[in-house]
């Protein structure tokens, strides 16, 4: 656990961040390039969907990351809320926009992928709909942060919302799948196909690694910015008024 309270002190965090940032960024670019190469040139077209399947290499990692980021957000919120760990609050706050970005990417590529197969830009397919609802969970979380001026309070409230949201995600996912099967017992074409053969797996895993490291590479600087912004804000207060003390006359 000492890493956790190590990270609690912002100065030490910034030293770690500065150290690993170039490595993470490099790793992201490397795996991204390799992944794209494999995805575009070195993997078979799908026997049913033809070339359209290549969108899968961008869509599936994005959908996966949207869920991963939400779980990180909820986890960091819980740590921040229970142990009052300032850095965890900032991590959760800065993860949200990235998670929302992945969700929008997933939705966008999802509909791009759907057009050739289902003939419509948007199909109320169970998976796409769940990702859409997840996007609203992100928007609600970010809107709550922005609406509350006092950052310390905003952190606690947003943490509660993130945890409530996280606990509801499985219920929402189940209800959307149920809703989908209710009106259309089995989706005619499944988005990610029942099985992915070996040749397709390598680009997919590369892309997921690329997305993951890109997320970390984007997260670190935004956490640093937020920390410096808060330090500035606190400096501005301190010199104006000092905390009051009680003196008996």
């Amino acid at each position, binding site marked *: 656990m000492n890493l956790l309270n190590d990270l609690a002190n912002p100065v030490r965090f910034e030293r770690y961040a500065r150290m690993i940032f170039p490595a993470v960024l490099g790793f992201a670019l490397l795996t991204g390039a390799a992944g794209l190469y494999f995805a575009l040139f070195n993997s078979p077209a799908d026997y049913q969907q033809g070339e359209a399947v290549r969108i899968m290499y961008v869509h599936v990692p994005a959908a996966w990351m949207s869920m991963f980021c939400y779980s990180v957000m909820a986890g960091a919120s819980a740590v921040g809320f229970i142990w009052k760990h300032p850095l965890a609050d900032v991590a959760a706050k800065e993860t949200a926009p990235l998670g929302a970005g992945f969700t929008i990417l997933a939705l966008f590529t999802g509909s791009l992928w759907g057009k050739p197969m289902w003939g419509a830009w948007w199909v109320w397919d169970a998976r796409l709909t769940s990702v859409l609802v997840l996007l609203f969970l992100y928007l609600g979380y970010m809107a709550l942060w922005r609406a509350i001026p006092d950052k310390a309070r905003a952190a606690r409230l947003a943490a509660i919302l993130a945890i409530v949201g996280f606990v509801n995600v499985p219920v929402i996912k189940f209800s959307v799948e149920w809703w989908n099967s209710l009106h259309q017992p089995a989706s005619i074409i499944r988005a990610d196909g029942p099985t992915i053969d070996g040749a397709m797996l390598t680009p997919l895993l590369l892309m997921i690694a690329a997305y993951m490291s890109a997320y970390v590479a984007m997260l670190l600087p935004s956490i640093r910015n937020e920390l410096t912004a808060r330090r500035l804000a606190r400096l501005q207060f301190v010199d104006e008024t*000092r905390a009051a003390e009680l003196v008996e006359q």
Partner: protein
Amino acid sequence: MNQQTTTESTRPSIEQAERVIFSASGLAVSRGGRPVLTNISVRAEPGDAVVLRGPNGVGKTTLLRAFAGLLRPDHGEVLFTDAADAGRIRDRSEASVFCGVLNAHKAALTLRENLNFWAALYNAPQTRIEAASAQLKLDPYSDYPAGALSTGLARRLGLARLMIAQRPVWFIDEPTASLDSASSENFVAQVEVHRRRGGLVVIATHDPLPLSGARIFELTTKVAA
């Protein structure tokens, strides 16, 4: 604050309030991420009257809310211990009542409905409602909708809740700000009755209230280093 669960004490009747010692030690409170109060320590015995003074915005209300447990201090502790057997820690929900600048009544309910509602919350018998209404001379206005009351009357209604709660420690923020002189004197008299029964009050005010033997505290930021 280690909170021992105390058995449900018998409701203190209006004749004798339970004798409780209030103490805050090393309290530090911040609002909006900004430190507002630091190393606040004060102790009050049954019968005491503590008056908090200080310029506007220095944090009097924040301090009262922290005492009343309506605000989480950064660090430090607020304790209510039984005067008779000092070891036993009293639970705040039985020991203190907070009356802020807002009167906590519903405009759409009549004065009597508001009093009855509070009585239910504080588990107070019917007799105590009548006593509180009489003590603050509110009987003629029982059926007025609270929204129609003047600010002075509304304030007296808000203060009546202290009588209904019948808890030993009173935290009051600007009790007499909108009261006329007669009502103000009457309220001070009620406070003296409460103190004689072993209760204690902590009041944030600028009015020079004639409280006998009151201990005056000043909240100030310009403390000699």
